Structure formats: C-alpha cells, structure tokens
C-alpha cells in the first residue's frame, strides 16, 4: 500500500468520476491493520474466498473468461490516494497496466496451495484482487479470489464472486460503493468522544497476548479448517442453546474459542488478567445484495475475566450481557462515527492511538462469525459449488484469527495463524479443545 502525500501523477485520464470515492472509516481501519501487519514483516491485509467447484469445471476456459471480465479489470485498477488535508479516496487508474491477474495451477498439493495461494500478498499499488484457479492433486478444483481487505469486506467478496461468475448477471444493478449516511460533524464528534470514553474507561494493558517475541521466523500464514457435518452442526447448535446462547450462536462460538485458547496459556504456564476481543458487525443495509467495494463495518468488544471463564455457560452469559449493553447504548453505530473521524488523521497517529494502550497487541485474538450463507454461491460458471470458505487475514499481533461460517447448513471454522503467535503443537491443543467445547460444552480430557 502506498501512503502518498500528494495526488498520484496524472499520466493518463485517471479520475473517472464514477469511481472516485472517499474511503470509509472501516476501510481506514483495514489500512491500519495492513500497516500493522507489514511492520511485523507479514503479508498485507488480504482476505480470500475459496469456492470448491465440481470436477467438471473447465479451469482453462474459465481463466480466459475471468481475465476478460470487465468488472474484474475495473477492480484491479482501483487505487488509493492520500492527498494532504483531504480524506483519502479510491479512484480508478484507467490506464494502469494489468498483467493477467489470473493464475492457473495444475496438480497442486496442499502444502503448495497453502504456501502459494493462501499466502498471496496484494498491494493497492498493483491491483487489489487476484484469482487463482487450482486443480489439486486430489482431483478437486478450486477458485480462490484474494482481495485487499481495505477494499472488500466479507459481503463484498461474495458480491465480487457473483460479479465474476461468467454465467451470472454481473453487478445486477448494485452500486460500486456504499451510500454513506450523512451525519452532522458535531454529532459525529460527540459519538467519537463517547466511544473513546467507553473504551478507555477500562485498561487494556494486561490483555492476554499470544505473541511470543523471539520464536523462529515466520513461515507465513498457516490455515486450518475444522469441518462439521450437518449432524455435528446440529449437535453444536443444541449445545449453544444448552449453554445459554439465546440471541444468536456466535456468543457460544466466541465463548468456546476463548476457553479453548485459555488451555494454550495454561500449557505455557502464563496467566493474563483478561481476554480482549473485538467482533466485527456488518453495517450494510439488509435485504439487498449491496455494493461491491468498501467496508461497511463496525465492532462490538468483549472483555473476559477469569470469573467469566469459569464455564462455557458463564462465558456465554458474560458475552450476552456485554453485547446487549453495547447495542442498547448504540455503541456500534457510534463506533462508526469514531472510525469516520479517524480518517482525518495520518495512519501513524491512528496506529499510535491503538498501539499505546494495548502494547501493540490489538486484541487477544481476532474473531468473526459470518453465519449462514443463505443459499448463495451454489453454482459458479455453470457448475456446482461444493464448498465455500472465507479465509481471514491474521494480523500479527495477535497472530490468530478464528472465523465461523456455515455453508449449506454445515459449520466450518477457519483458523489462520502464524508461528510467532501459536506453535503447531499449541494449535493442535487449541483445535482439540475447541472441538470438544463446541460439541459438549466441556474440555477434552
């Protein structure tokens, strides 16, 4: 990502009016994470959507069709400008050189898939999206769309996949960017102050942190997928109800995740006063497919002390209470105002504001729950889609991201991590405990 202080040089008719759009506060937050990751020597803030296609998919033919896709070409030309004294904005560099943007792989094994495809880095200077078409050694065929998180949120990724489908209906009349409601500056500032007051009202200094300085150098992002059959998913849902998750299962998922991670700290003989986690919330209007680019997100925040973590039920109760309290106080909406205000300051300043109170950790771990995919993306390029997976980035620190999702009613948990945060052995322990807690509400023996 380039953080330029002046508008980019005009070597061709750059500013196509329909594509000049100010970044949202949530885009800016993703840029902050991108900066944070790169400062640690990690790849940037890239999200991925994988569609496992039926074996009849013709990847050769698909490759050509995707390269010619007008929406994809437009997306790859989107760039970021950071002019002094103005809110940064997206624009289309209509003359940008666009080499390929689609790569075809044959006979790829899992290790190569992970090293090449799931570790593909992207820069906003050279194209915010990339497509890998993969024929795996096990006979499966996959399309993996990688995109910069500053430009695409999870819903945007689904919309991009739909727009790329050669048999689909493109953008289906939806906008490229969100319609951002206009909030008077004074109200925005008032909201921002209220959120800051709420957040700084309790300390972050001692939050549980996985990051271990001095571990062997990063080998890149590691990704694991926990898959639950339909029956197992129903078992998890019954357990969520039994443990007190009444308004959505994500509170149970978060409780089980936090408790499973606690066993990793116990094995390290480390005790931290509390876990601190933020959970993203989509702020997109519902009932429509929605815009393609730009994040429309807010967050809720959860702090879990020892007494909250006495059992899964107490953890769920604590999360229920904290989230209800924040929604009642309209904090997610007010947090959007804070993020909007923060677009006006340089990223280094924003970074210092986050880093200082948390000693650079950002959160104990990153967590999101995408929920059910509502029968979307069942076919692509005329063939069946057998599985959909969303791969999150793992900003480091904390270095571990857990994403829950459902496709065709089946629960999947994608774990993205780096060695410096959690070793392979620790990851094994975490997975075993998470599996047990989700199914039984108890730790594995």
């Amino acid at each position, binding site marked *: 990502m380039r953080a330029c202080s002046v508008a980019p040089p005009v070597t061709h008719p750059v500013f196509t009016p329909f594509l000049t759009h100010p970044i949202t506060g949530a885009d800016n937050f993703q840029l902050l994470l991108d900066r944070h990751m790169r400062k640690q020597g990690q790849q940037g803030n890239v999200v991925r959507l994988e569609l496992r296609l039926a074996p009849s998919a013709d990847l050769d033919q698909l490759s050509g069709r995707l390269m010619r896709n007008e929406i994809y070409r437009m997306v790859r030309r989107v760039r970021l400008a950071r002019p002094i004294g103005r809110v940064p904005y997206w624009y289309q560099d209509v003359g940008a050189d666009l080499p390929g943007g689609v790569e075809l792989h044959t006979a790829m094994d899992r290790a190569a898939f992970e090293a090449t495809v799931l570790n593909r880095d992207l820069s906003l200077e050279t194209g915010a999206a990339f497509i890998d078409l993969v024929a795996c050694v096990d006979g499966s065929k996959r399309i993996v769309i990688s995109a910069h998180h500053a430009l695409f949120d999870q819903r945007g990724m689904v919309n991009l996949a739909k727009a790329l489908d050669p048999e689909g209906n493109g953008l289906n009349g939806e906008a490229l960017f969100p319609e951002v409601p206009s909030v008077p500056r004074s109200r925005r500032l008032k909201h921002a102050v209220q959120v800051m007051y709420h957040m700084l009202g309790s300390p972050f200094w001692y939050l549980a942190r996985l990051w271990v300085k001095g571990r062997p150098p990063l080998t890149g992002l590691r990704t694991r997928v926990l898959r639950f059959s339909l029956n197992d998913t129903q078992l998890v849902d019954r357990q969520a109800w039994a443990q*007190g998750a*009444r*308004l*959505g*299962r*994500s509170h149970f998922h978060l409780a089980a995740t936090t408790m499973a991670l606690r066993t990793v700290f116990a094995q390290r003989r480390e005790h931290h006063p509390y876990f601190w986690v933020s959970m993203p*919330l*989509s702020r997109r*209007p*519902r*009932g*429509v497919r*929605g815009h393609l680019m730009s994040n429309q997100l807010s967050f*809720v925040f959860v702090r879990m002390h020892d007494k909250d973590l006495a059992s899964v039920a107490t953890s769920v109760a604590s999360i229920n209470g904290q*989230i*209800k309290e924040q*929604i*009642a106080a309209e904090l*997610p909406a007010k947090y959007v105002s804070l993020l909007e205000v923060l677009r006006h300051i340089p990223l280094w300043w924003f970074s210092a504001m986050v880093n200082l109170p948390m000693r650079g950790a950002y959160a104990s771990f990153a967590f999101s729950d995408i*929920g*059910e995919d*509502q029968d979307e993306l069942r076919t692509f390029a005329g063939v069946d889609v057998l599985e959909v997976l969303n791969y999150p980035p793992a900003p480091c620190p904390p270095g571990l991201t857990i994403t829950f999702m459902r496709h065709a009613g089946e629960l999947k948990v994608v774990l993205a991590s780096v060695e410096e945060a959690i070793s392979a052995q620790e990851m094994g322990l975490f997975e075993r405990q998470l599996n047990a807690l989700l199914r039984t509400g108890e730790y594995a023996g």
Partner: protein
Amino acid sequence: MEKTMSGNEQELAEELCAYLRSHVLARQVSIDPDQPFAQLGIDSMSIIELVLYIERKHGVALPDNALHPENLRTARALARCTLAARAEVVGSR
C-alpha cells in the same frame, strides 16, 4: 409509569417490521410480518436490536425461555411471544 402496548399481534408485528425498515433494511426493501428474517439477511445482532426495542418501547423483557429460535424467525412470531410474555407478567401480579 407503566408503558402501554396494544394486545393486537398484527399491530405489534407491523410495528416491528416498521422498525426493521427504518433501522436495518435497505430503503427499497419491504418486509411483511410472516417473512423469515433470515431470508432478508437479518442476523442475530439486528434481532438483539429488535428485542431491546421491545424492552425500551413496551417495557417487556423477554424471558430466556421465550428466546427460542422459532420465536425469533419472523416479526409475527416475535410479536406473539412478546404478547405471551406480557400476559404472563400481568397474570402473575
């Protein structure tokens, strides 16, 4: 002062739909009381908003056992369980 609530299920369901139209749904989207929330992408966080709206506007805190997924499926189901919870509170006085 005790808040008032109409005992009419249809009326309350319509009111919940109106809340969703103004706070959660895109401008051009319509919703009727029997339309499943999931069909419109209304997730658990929006349902929490709706439950808090009922508490705030009508003074009815839905008890734990009323928050079964079936009762949170449509505006009508939520209106029905709100009225039942209300009746239970009134009956126990």
